[in-house]
Each structure stands twice: as structure tokens, then as C-alpha cells.
């Protein structure tokens, strides 16, 4: 990678922030973050990839910050986007029951002239990239939905969004792994459990690819879905 494509800054006593330019792929950011975490395991507490950034929390009494910055520069420069093509991102398909009873914010799309069928077709035809994971454990920001599906967050967030709910906020889509408050526009529900107590805890990492497929109510129940 060329030097001008990223910057490294020291943002606290024990945190370093890397920012790439917008041409970097989710796959490259995710892979680099995993490289950093594995290579520097003994001095690192957390590595958080998100869109075009990586945050590193480290132990400054185990490594001098200058040495760490130098190491990171080397790792990033040596990181070869060519070899990335050998690392295939995982591909996950998430079944979703899109319906009047699970698409809690269907009316917001209908007001724009989008029918349920059109919404399903637009949401399931795209392949999404996991750009970031956060907000809640296992909550993955998937980029990007078709422009016809772009929808601002609810003015007043719900106090409880049921686990498995599939939402849209602006250009992103996501699945709520557990019951939680939230302001995304809900368009369906997945029966898949997306967070477990045992490693790897969640089925995807930053850089992975996700598609959705529409299932019937019967299939939703069979797969353990709860209405």
C-alpha cells in the first residue's frame, strides 16, 4: 500500500487511530485489522476496524509508541492488496421473513410508492459488505442498500426492537442480534440467532459479504423464528 493512502495518529495515552482514504475496501480494512491483532497480540487490548478506519488500544508500558507507529507503518506498507485477492471473504446468506407483521415500518416505504414486493426485491438483489460492527454486540453495518431504499432513521427510536429484526438507516442495512432500543426502519425479521456465547460469537467479520433471501412464514417458524 502506498504511504499517502493512510495516516496514523496518536489519540490518547494508549490508543492509535489509522485512517485510510476512501478507496480502501472493507475487505482490506478487516484483513489488516486481523493481521495487526494477530501480529501484535501481546501488546494489544483491542483492534476495531470500522469503514476506512482502525482503532488500536494497546499497552504503552509494553511498547514505546514510536516503535508501535513504526511497526504499523511497515505492516500497512507491506500489506499487499494483490495478496488480498487470495483471502476470500466469507459469504453469509441470511433468511428473512418480510411481511406486514414483521416489516414494522413498511408504511414509510409504501408512502413512497414502494410495495412490499418491490422492497423485498430491492433488498435481496444486492450483495452487501460488512463495513463495521458495533452499536451492540454483533450488530453489523452492511453497505449499501439500493438508493430507492435509503430512509432516514425514525425521529423517535423504538424502546424495543425484537431480536432478528432487519432494518435500514440511510444507506445501511443491519440485523438486530438481540432485543434492544433502536431507530432503524424495520422491514422484516430473521430467525437466525446472530450472537452466541461461544467463539466466534457472531457469523461474520468486517470485510465479509452478506446477502438476504426471502422466506415464508412457515419456514421462519421452522427455523426457530419468533413472532
Amino acid at each position, binding site marked *: 500500500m502506498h504511504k499517502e493512502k493512510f495516516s496514523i495518529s496518536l489519540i490518547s495515552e*494508549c*490508543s492509535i*487511530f489509522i485512517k485510510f482514504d476512501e478507496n480502501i475496501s472493507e475487505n482490506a480494512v478487516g484483513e489488516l485489522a486481523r493481521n495487526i491483532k494477530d501480529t501484535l497480540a501481546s501488546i494489544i487490548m483491542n483492534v476495531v476496524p470500522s469503514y476506512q478506519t482502525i482503532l488500536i488500544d494497546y499497552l504503552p508500558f509494553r511498547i514505546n509508541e514510536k516503535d508501535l507507529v513504526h511497526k504499523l507503518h511497515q505492516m500497512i506498507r507491506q500489506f499487499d492488496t494483490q495478496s488480498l485477492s487470495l483471502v476470500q471473504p466469507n459469504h453469509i446468506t441470511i433468511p428473512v421473513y418480510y411481511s406486514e407483521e414483521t416489516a414494522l415500518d413498511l408504511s414509510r416505504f409504501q408512502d413512497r410508492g414502494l410495495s412490499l414486493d418491490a422492497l423485498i426485491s430491492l433488498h435481496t438483489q444486492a450483495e452487501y459488505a460488512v463495513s*463495521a460492527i458495533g452499536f451492540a454486540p454483533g450488530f453489523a453495518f452492511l453497505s449499501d442498500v439500493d438508493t430507492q431504499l435509503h430512509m432516514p432513521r425514525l425521529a423517535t427510536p423504538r424502546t424495543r426492537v425484537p431480536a432478528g429484526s432487519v432494518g435500514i438507516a440511510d444507506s445501511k442495512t443491519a440485523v438486530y442480534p438481540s432485543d434492544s432500543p433502536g431507530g432503524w426502519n424495520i422491514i422484516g425479521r430473521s430467525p437466525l440467532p446472530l450472537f452466541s456465547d461461544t467463539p466466534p460469537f457472531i457469523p461474520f467479520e468486517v470485510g465479509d459479504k452478506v446477502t438476504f433471501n426471502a422466506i415464508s412464514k412457515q419456514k421462519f417458524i421452522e427455523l426457530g423464528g419468533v413472532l
Partner: protein
Amino acid sequence: MSYAGLLVEKSGPLSLIQDFGRFGLAHIGVTQGGPVDDYAYSWANHLLGNVVNCAAIEITLGNACFVALHNCHLAICGGDLNAKVDSEPISNWSDFTLKKGQKLQFGVAKNGLRSYLAVKGGFDIAQHLGSASTVTRESLGGYDSNGGALKAGDILPFFPHNLPKHKPRLMTFRFKPDYNLPIKLRVIEGYQNEDFDEDARQAFYSNAFTISPDSNRMGYRLEGNKIKPPYEGVLSEGIALGSIQVPNDGNPIVLLNDHQTIGGYPKFGCVARIDLPRLAQAKPGQKVNFVKGDRQGLQEVWCQWAQFFGY
């Protein structure tokens, strides 16, 4: 195997099991948790000769009561919540013993907000995703391994141990913070700092803020000075402990241990790690001032502290 226990007779408004925290999972959205006053927490374990990760109880606001089901060697550090053993006041920032049947009571907070109660060898609480720390919002850790606060009737197991022969150890006064003193937090500028305009920087450093009642283990909200953010948001990015985010309403939020792992508000910088306990012990209504800090100097002090406690 544990054969000994401490009974929670009254839990108070918020008593949480905390060990040092949950690390290495921020990339899947799991926050660190752990004691918001890690200085007091670390002293409580240190006074008992415990390693730093031994699970202790973070008691917020007091009004809690515990009964020893077996003899035990304990320590309390942090906010002064008027602790008493069988109605006799005991010293804060010290170790002490409870004999079987004795009662430890916490009253109301007179200095600070949170007290850390540690036991010799630590409370034997199951780890959940690698830590016993309670994070309610994530349903992780704690006595119930579901993020729940302690409740009356819980019996907290610990390893049986002999009571010490020495007198209680009291910390020297120069290590004891006075949480009621005015709060001045040092700021390491970073993130989008350079994008804030001169008026925003002036407003940030020149006037005192007031701590909002809407403050908790996720973050402390500050009011009184509106800080104009340079823009409404950025693409979500990793949040470091102590980050100062400035949402569109202009009221800054300092993020503490239960913070979300990523966020998209513009950030002014980070509060120094060694100053975060002062903020975490502050009550709504208290005043806070910010002053620009020197990263390298603060890093040096934090490293000394971390190595003293064995982080």
C-alpha cells in the same frame, strides 16, 4: 470449589460485579466494561494482595448491606459511602475483616459516588466472554451471567481464607483522592479536534460544565456550554475510552467503560486515563473544567500507575 460466601441482604440502587474488564472483543461490538474508577478498584485488590483482575463489587450511591456467611478479609476503596460493620464506622481506603454473621452496611455517599468492595482472592463469579464484568446493556457478565445488577438474596462465593494477623492497612493520605474537590480534566486532543472552530475551542476550555443527571457508566453528559461541532457526523469509527464526543445539540459526552465500541459523532479528543476516575466519581450537578493535556507526560504517569498495579 467455593465453600464460602457473602450474602447480599440489600443491594442498593446499583451494585455490580466488576473485574478488570472484557478485552479483545471490541471488533465484534463488545465493550470493555470494568470499574469506572479503576484507581480505587485497583487499590482495593492491592490492599488484599490480589492480582488486578479479581472480581469485586462496584457499589454506586450506597444503601447496600452484606452479611458474612463465613469469616472474610475485605477491603473498601473509592467513594466514601459511610460504611459500617455492625454499626461501627470503618475507614475507607483500608482492609478489614468480617466474622461469620457480621453485617457490612453502606449509607449514603458523602465523598464520591462509588465504592469498591474486594475480598481476599476475589469473588468467584463465572466468566462470561472472558470476564465477570457486568455490562447491563449487553446482557453480559455479573452474578447471573446476564448483565444483571446484584439483588437481595444473592450469595457471592469466595475462596475460604484465614483472617490476617496484621492490623488493617490504611493508605497514606497522599494517595487518597478527594472526590469533592473541583474537577479539572486534562484533554489529549485528537480525532476531529482540528476541525472545531476557534469559538468552539474557546467555549470548551474557558467555561465550566455541569454534569447532567443523564450520566451513567456509558458516558457522562455535560451541560452549560454549547460546543458547536464542525459537522453533524462522521462515518462510525472506533471509540477510545474517555473520548469526548460532541453531538449536534452541543453538549459534550465523555465516554466511560460501557461505551459503544463505534460511533459517528465528531470527537474533540480524549480525557486522560488518570483523570477518568475523578469524573466517574462525580455526581450530577458537579462542575467540570477541561484543560489541554500533554499526551506524553500523561502516558508516563499512566504507565507508572499501570505497572504499580500490574495491569
